[in-house]
Every structure is written in structure tokens, then in C-alpha cells.
């Protein structure tokens, strides 16, 4: 799993903005390369954290519903890829190719996959 964290306050291009098509093109090309390399499982860009709702769970109590993201930090979780990779080095190489120039990418193995033998 590659978790994509970035600064939400940096301007985002909207459809029709100059450069939008190039920007999206880079992501589509990346997705295509994952698919062609047999690494694609799933992936998505998430709506901004202003749309987030957090449920805080405490044992024995009803969940507390909170407006906003889990962590108030500069870099927010903004999207993810679930990929198939032989090992960490391959996952790092794939993550390096993401068309991003700032932010951080957290790579975490999936601990349990229902489809795994």
C-alpha cells in the first residue's frame, strides 16, 4: 500500500485550468504503467480532508463522531495505491515513479489479504 501524503494548501488544478491535462496525463500514464507491469491492484485520489469525518472508538462507549481528519498536520493523506510488488525495493522503485514533486509516500505491507493463499 502506498499512502500519499501532501500539503492540501498547495493549489490544485481544476479541470480546464492550464496544465490540468498534462498533470492528469502524468497520473494516467503512471496508472497505465502499473497495470502493464502487473502491479496494479487499486488506487484512488481522495476528496480533501475538509470532507473528512472521524469516528473515535472507545471500548464500551458509543463512537464519537468528529468533523475533520484524524490528524491535524500540514501533510494530509490524499490518496493511495494498492500495488503488487515482489519486495520492498520493488515497491520503493514503483513509488519513486509517482508523478509528484513534493509530499511524502508511506509504503506499508498489507498484513492480510483475503485472496492470499
Amino acid at each position, binding site marked *: 500500500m502506498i499512502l500519499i501524503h501532501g500539503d492540501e494548501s498547495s493549489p490544485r488544478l481544476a479541470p480546464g485550468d492550464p496544465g490540468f491535462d498534462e498533470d492528469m496525463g502524468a497520473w494516467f500514464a503512471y496508472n497505465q504503467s502499473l497495470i502493464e507491469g502487473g502491479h496494479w491492484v487499486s488506487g484512488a485520489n481522495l476528496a480533501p480532508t475538509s470532507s473528512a469525518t472521524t469516528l473515535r472508538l472507545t471500548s464500551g462507549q458509543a463512537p464519537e463522531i468528529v468533523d475533520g481528519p484524524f490528524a491535524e498536520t500540514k501533510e494530509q493523506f490524499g490518496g493511495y495505491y494498492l500495488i503488487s*510488488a*515482489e*519486495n*520492498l*525495493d*520493488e515497491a*520503493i522503485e514503483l513509488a519513486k515513479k509517482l508523478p509528484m514533486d513534493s509530499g511524502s509516500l508511506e*509504503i506499508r*505491507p498489507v498484513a492480510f489479504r483475503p485472496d*492470499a493463499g
Partner: protein
Amino acid sequence: MTTSAEIADAVTRLAREESGRVLALLTRRFGDLDAADDAVQDALTTALTAWQSGIPERPAAWLYTVARNTLIDELRRDRASRRRLHEAAPELTAHHATTETEEEDDLIMDASSLGDERLRLLLLCCHPALDRDTQVALTLRLAGGLSAAEVAAAYLLPEATLTQRIVRAKRKIRDAGMPLTIPANLDERVDALLRVLYLIFNEGYLSRGAEHVTRVDLITEAIRLTRQVVDELPASAEAEGLLALELYHHARSGTRVDGLGELVLLEHQDRTGWNLDGITEANARLHSAMTRMAPGPYQVQAIIAGHHANARTAADTDWGAIAELYGQLGRMAPNAVVELNRAVAIAMADGPRAGLAVLDRLTGLNEYHLFHATRGELLARAGRPAAASFERARGLTSNEGERRHLERRAAETSGG
């Protein structure tokens, strides 16, 4: 009849020289670093009693065979228990039907063809996904064959802390799927490996603690591991440059501390006490590295160390050339400590005032004891008050030899 001291020696040698290679080989074959490490450690312990009737002719092959048999036994037990579980509750184990073959062919221990097993393990220990302290601990423990107690003693850490660090690292290696392979981008990884080896060397060279006599000889360990890297990466000019650098420093290490445990400055060292064989080998290594025409910071530092080691008297030292080399080093990677060394070289070449002028432009070293010690020395040589600088430096170092030296310099320059 073999004495227990001889056996202990042979086992230590086996652990240091061969256990890394054996561990890498077993890890690759069985796919489980943790289990392989346990098996190797057990086999080393077994050797202490098993070898009483005689030390085997090929200890590495013995180690491999004993550890491998342990792992195979574990697999068998594991498989047997899985079979029993499968019979009792087939629905739970449907996916886990045994697939591994009963492959037990003897792997011939041919040292010449297994060189890169050791490199694989060294590179795994220095994987960039591990933090620097962990890289150092793993390199000494897994590739260097030191016990957790020895590594802990060398780094003045409680053994439990060190053991925890290694356990966590092994878990991350397993869970994150860090491969035991030689990476495609070898240069980047070799840089990390050389940096770790140099850190180990430096820790031995200027130990932070007072009790350095009782500590594992990290200098020798670092040199031994660097030699392995040079053997396995003969094309790397920087690996051989690092080896030359370590050999130069090591050749002088016998004269760095006097009989009372005080640090002796380079210019006052007894040059007849330097290890000439070490310097000769370092010269050859450096020459061999430089013929590859791939300069790098370790080679430049080795050239500097070579200038010092090959000067017959302190007065023969070519300080102008050394100042120029520190300039080069600074251009490769700007660094305040390098600038500090350049200031010393300039002071030696052109006088203390020229050196002080460089120091005055330096920032960011206020908490670094050698900055204040150097400043004190140059001030004293320029005939200016220096005791406060020596005092400041003394307060910032924990090395006992250095403390004594700085205390004496502070006393000599106070109220003068």
C-alpha cells in the same frame, strides 16, 4: 586434545569471519533471516562443546551444516504439526497444504563462488529503510558476527536496548519484505554501506566513553568489513579509498595516546611508533583506488591522511597541499567540520592568524568541542588569550584522553 581457550578462539574467529556468509546463504535458502540467525547462534554455542574432541578442518562448512540441519528439523516439526492440525481441522489449513519440496541436497561450501552472499547481507544491514543506528548495529551483529553483548559494550548501550533494536530490525526486514539481493542501483547502496563502516571505524577511533580499553576493537572490525567490501566490489574506488583511509589512521593509533591516557597531537606523536607496514599497505590501496579515476570524498581524505603518514617529521608535512585538499573535499560536500580542518591546515601553512580568519567565518560549530579546541590552539599560537576556548572545549567532550589534554592546555594558557 584441544584446550578450551583454543576452542573459544576458533569459535570467535568463525563467528567473525564466516558467520555472515553462512547466515546470508541460509537466509536465502530458507527465506527467514530470524530463524537462520538463531540457528547460526545456536550452532556457534554448540561448537564450544562439540569441538572438544577436535576443531573441524573446515569450520565454515561445519557451521553451515549444523545450522542448516537445525532449520530443516524445525521445518519438519513445523510441517508435522501442520499435518496434525490439517487432520484435526482441515478447513483451517486448506490453503496451507505443504508445497515445499523435501530439498536437502548438500550445498557445497565453495568460498570463491559465495563472495557476494556476504555482500548481500552487508547491503541488507545498510538498507536505507533502516535508520542509521540500526544499520550500524545490524552490520556488526549479523555481518560482523559480533554478539549483541559485544555490540552493546562497544556503543555503551544496555544490552537489552541493543537486542531490542535488532529484534525490531529483523521484524521490519521480514514484514516489510526487504530483499536479500544486490540492488540494481548499487552505487547508492554502497554509499550507505561505506558510511556505516566509516561510522563504526570512527566510533572505535575516538570513543565517546572513558573505558575504551575494555571495548571491542571497532577499528579492527571496521577494517575487516571494509576489506570484505573491497574484495567483493573490486571496481569501487571509494571502497578502496575508505580502506586506505582507515589503514592510515590505524597505523598511527598506537601513538595517539600517551602512557597517562592523554591525547597526543599529531605533531608531537612519536613517528617511529607508527606502523610502517600499515602505511605501506595504505599507500598501495590508495594508489590502486586512484588509478580508477573515480574520485570521491574517502579518497580525498585518504590522500590527506597519506600526507601526514608519509611525512617523516611534523615539519615535513605539506600543509599547503593539505589545505587545498580540504578545499576540494568541501566542494564535494560543503561541511563545517571540513572547513574547520581547512582552517588548521591554513594556520600551519600561513600562520595562526590566517587560520583564525577562516574560523571566524565559520558558523554552526558552537557545540562542537574540536572547534573550540582548535580556536584555543590558534589563539595561543597567535599570542592571544586562549584558556576560555580550551575550557569550553573540555566541557563539550566526554573522551577522557581529550579532557586531560584540554585541561592541561587551559592551565598552560591561563593568566599568561
